[in-house]
Structure formats: structure tokens, C-alpha cells
């Protein structure tokens, strides 16, 4: 199997691949997690809507994997890197999704909280990538953002209504947001090679800047629904027990992604501190990842190279 991540290439090639895998793996894994609600969502109409969102996200992953495969094979270094191999054929540490998206669904409130935080972040980065100097990437954002528009409407519809009560719904939503918030910051963990991507205009703004844009949006929403406690209580990124690789070794404590946290400065909530250690963008995952990786890639690994 061709492992596009290990093929030799310029550092810019590697950085571009890191960007695409971060985008694609986030979508693939959260789509897979969302799909676990199929058949058991709170209501039949919501079951359809949420399953459809799950399929949308996996479709978005395919868009990014396609650009990755084209890029890799176009430059003659990853012949035959099929989409299946790229999407489903990598070992655990090859996945570059943020830890947030691999977390178990827990309950509906956590699921909605995560969907809201994630899709808001996805919209921020797609909006930025619309201005990318890499035209294949910039062109892809249009169609994706049209579907993301629905995802955002869906997330806001649920957040607004759960926040409105009754008391138990509001409490559960708040708890779900608190639980997801810290690791949502990890969506903005700088990519390997980020400086080069920014210098080339491929990533039009560094993740630190995207994080602030996201935080502005989230803070405004949470303030509107009276859930600012989420910002106050939200844990720092990288909380939780980490496992490192498919070889089963635990990640040493010093490499686990941590920080920043957020604080209020005047009217604005701002991140304080830098990311330390390494998280999903470097292939470091949580204890929730092996099970979802096993399930997601099991069929492919049992029949590698099969045509469907």
C-alpha cells in the first residue's frame, strides 16, 4: 500500500498533504461518529437529517482525499494511491484528525455541542481557504460551504432550542459544550509546515488567527443564549488520556497537546498561551480513537485493494 505521508517530497509538498489530511480526516471521522446515530436519533426526522449530515461530511472528506491523491500522483510519487487506501488504509498514527472528532458521541447534547463547535470551525477555515493560492483547494470550498450552511442552520436550531430549556436540556447542552470546548480548540492546532503554507498563501491565515475568528463567533453565540459559563469552564485543549500509536505505546506526557485556554479581555474572549506538545495534527490520538479506527477501517483492511 502506498503511504502518501511517507513519500519523499519537498517540505512544501509535505505541508500541503498535512493540510489536506487534516481537513479530510476531520470530516471522515466526525462523519463516521455522526453515523452512529443512524436508527437511534431522538426522532425519525432528526435521524434522517443527522444521517444526511454524516454522509455530507464523508462526501467532503472524499473531496479533500481526491485533491490529495491527485497531488501525490500528479507529482509522480504516489502512484495508485486510491481514495480507499488514502481514506481507510492508514495506520492509526497516520490519521491527522483533531481529537475532538474521534470522541464517542456520549449523549445527544454532547453530539449537538460538538457538531456546533466543529461546523463553526469548519466554516471559519473553509471561508479562509476560499482565498487560498492553491486553486484546487479554493475551488472546492464553494460546494462544501453550501452544505456547511445547512449544517450550521441545523446546529444553531438545536443549540438555541436546547438552551431555551427545559432546565435539564439546558444543563445537558451546557455540560456537553463544556466537555467539547477544550478539545475544539485542538481543531486549530498548527499544522506541521504551517509557516510555509501561510508564506505561500495556501493557508491564507495561520491557525492562531482562525482560532480567534472562531472564538469570536462562538463567544457571541454563547453569550446570546446565556451560556457563557462554557467559556469560563471550558477545559484546556488536550485534556484526556492519550494513546500514541498503533503499536500501543502511550504518548509520553510531554508530547500531549495542551493549551491554550481562553480568557476575557475587555469585550473579547481571547486564547491565552500557545499549543504545547502534539495532538491530532501529528497523529497523536485519544483513547477513543482505536475503537472508531478499527470499525471504520476494518472492512478495508480485511480486503485491501478490493473494488466495490
Amino acid at each position, binding site marked *: 500500500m502506498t503511504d502518501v505521508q511517507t513519500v519523499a517530497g519537498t517540505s512544501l509538498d509535505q505541508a500541503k498533504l498535512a493540510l489536506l489530511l487534516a481537513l479530510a480526516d476531520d470530516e471522515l471521522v466526525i462523519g463516521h461518529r455522526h453515523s452512529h446515530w443512524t436508527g437511534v436519533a431522538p*426522532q*425519525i*426526522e*432528526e435521524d*434522517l*437529517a443527522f444521517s*444526511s*449530515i454524516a454522509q455530507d461530511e464523508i462526501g467532503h472528506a472524499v473531496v479533500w482525499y481526491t485533491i490529495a491523491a491527485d497531488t501525490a500522483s500528479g507529482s509522480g510519487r504516489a502512484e495508485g494511491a486510491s481514495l480507499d487506501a488514502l481514506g481507510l488504509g492508514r495506520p492509526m498514527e497516520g490519521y491527522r484528525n483533531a481529537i475532538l472528532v474521534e470522541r464517542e458521541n456520549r449523549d445527544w447534547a454532547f453530539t449537538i455541542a460538538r457538531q456546533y463547535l466543529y461546523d463553526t470551525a469548519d466554516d471559519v477555515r473553509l471561508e479562509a481557504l476560499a482565498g487560498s493560492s492553491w486553486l484546487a483547494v479554493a475551488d472546492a470550498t464553494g460546494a462544501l460551504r453550501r452544505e456547511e450552511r*445547512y449544517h450550521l*442552520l*441545523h446546529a444553531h*436550531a438545536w443549540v438555541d*432550542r436546547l438552551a431555551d430549556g427545559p432546565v435539564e436540556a439546558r444543563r445537558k447542552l451546557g455540560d456537553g459544550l463544556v466537555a467539547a470546548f477544550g478539545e475544539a480548540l485542538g481543531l486549530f492546532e498548527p499544522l506541521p509546515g504551517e509557516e510555509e503554507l501561510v508564506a505561500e498563501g495556501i493557508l491564507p491565515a495561520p491557525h492562531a488567527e482562525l482560532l480567534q475568528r472562531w472564538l469570536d463567533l462562538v463567544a457571541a453565540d454563547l453569550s446570546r443564549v446565556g451560556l457563557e459559563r462554557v467559556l469560563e469552564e471550558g477545559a484546556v485543549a488536550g485534556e484526556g488520556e492519550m494513546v500514541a500509536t498503533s503499536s500501543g505505546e502511550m504518548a509520553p506526557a510531554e508530547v500531549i497537546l495542551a493549551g491554550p485556554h481562553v480568557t476575557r479581555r475587555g469585550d473579547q474572549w481571547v486564547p491565552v498561551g500557545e499549543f504545547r506538545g502534539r495532538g491530532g495534527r501529528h497523529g497523536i490520538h485519544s483513547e477513543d480513537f482505536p475503537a472508531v479506527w478499527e470499525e471504520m477501517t476494518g472492512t478495508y483492511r480485511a480486503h485491501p485493494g478490493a473494488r466495490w
Partner: protein
Amino acid sequence: MRWEVLGRRTHDDAWTAVGAVHAPDRDLALLLAKESFFRHGEGVDLAVVLLADIHRFAEPELLEPSTDKSYRLQRGYPLGDKRRRAAERVQAAGATIDRPRPADRRARNTEHRSREAPSS
């Protein structure tokens, strides 16, 4: 709350009922209706209406015709015998019908019906 879902397949089509969703308010009903009935490009327009806002005709039994109305319908005029007799006469005269049937019978019938509709 139950909402009836309406859709239009193209901008030239009239609204048709496509199904129903349960939702606590209008906005959520619209959001859920989109994914329930319009996931595969089924239409260009979507609307919901609260079931309670649909006013039913109070005496549906009046919708059933109480006397024979077959004379208002094409099927009320059996043409089979007439056709058979005509065919026999054609055959007896040693003639054949050499012109094929018009190609698009369905379109012709539709046109015919819509022309007749107002008077029926």
C-alpha cells in the same frame, strides 16, 4: 406538532404535498423537511404548513358522486363494439388502415383532457 410538507419539482410545477414531519416549530420543521424529502434533488422549492392550518371540507361524503356521472367521463362511452364493427367493414371492403397511430398518444390525451376540464 405535525407539519405537512409541500414541494415543487421545477419552477413551472404547482405545489404538491410530499409528506409530513413532526417538529416543535416552523423553522425546525423546514430544516427537518429538507433532509426528509429533498436529499436527492427532488425539487426546487420547499414549504411547510401546520396541519392545523389546513382547512378540511366538512362533509367529505359529498365528494362521492351520488348519481351516475359516467356520462361526464370518456370511459362512460364504450367504443369497443363500434371499433370492432368499423374494423369488420374495413376488412369486408378489402381495405387496410395503412397510417400508423399517432406517435405520442399520451401527450395528445393530456391536451385533450385539459381542454375539456373546465366544462366537466
